[in-house]
């Protein structure tokens, strides 16, 4: 399941709802991404997340389907926020549930790694030096490349 929204989410409530009633689930893994208050030595006052409505949903559905193809997941959830966010605010939630922990851990990591390099979101940082579009990091490409199946 995927969701794109401006408003905040409650990770505990989301996790409970995702696995409620499913007794096959033995392990749940989750990742929460937050806005940092610092970037390259400059203080970040806020961050605005822009996205490509339509393609974002399509791409996240695709990434989610790929995780279900690769691991025996009982359930999964991606929530990604957009709009203006302050330091400390939640940006993204990834939850994966499986019978055993390894699939849950691996799929969770896969989802956030792939999302970071494929889902069409862009971060605009509001720093003391002015507004700046965040540049993609080579480290994120490397993290995503680990999951490539050639």
């Amino acid at each position, binding site marked *: 399941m995927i969701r794109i929204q401006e408003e905040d989410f409650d990770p505990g409530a989301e996790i409970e709802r995702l696995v409620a009633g499913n007794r096959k689930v033995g392990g749940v893994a989750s990742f929460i*991404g937050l806005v940092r208050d610092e970037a390259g030595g400059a203080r970040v006052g806020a961050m605005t*997340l*822009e*996205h*490509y409505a*339509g*393609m974002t949903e*399509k*791409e996240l559905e695709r990434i989610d389907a790929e995780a279900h193809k690769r691991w025996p997941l009982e359930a999964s959830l991606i929530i*990604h926020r957009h709009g203006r966010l302050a330091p400390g605010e939640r*940006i*993204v939630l990834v939850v994966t549930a499986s019978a055993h922990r390894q699939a849950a851990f691996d799929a969770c990591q896969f989802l*956030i790694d792939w*999302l*970071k*390099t*494929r*889902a*069409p*979101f*862009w*971060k*605009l940082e509001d720093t003391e030096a002015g507004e700046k*579009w*965040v*540049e*993609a990091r080579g480290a*994120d490409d490397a993290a995503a490349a680990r999951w490539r199946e050639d």
Partner: protein
Amino acid sequence: MKILYFAWLKSRTGVGEEELTPPESVTDVGGLIAWLRGRSPGHAKALADMDVVRVAVNQDYAGLDHPVSPDDEIALFPPVTGG
């Protein structure tokens, strides 16, 4: 053809979305980019280095040799930075 620009491509071209009719000689993404560069100095600057521009045709990632047609939605944007 609908062309969409995101993030700094939007600020450099000065436009978020435009409805255009490229000449018939434009048949693929590469040809479209070359034609778009001629629209304004802002377009030329935004599309100068295709190493930092990603392309989607009808909301799917596409390469420079991907064909384009009049009803397509083409999006141009920098490498993504979500998560």
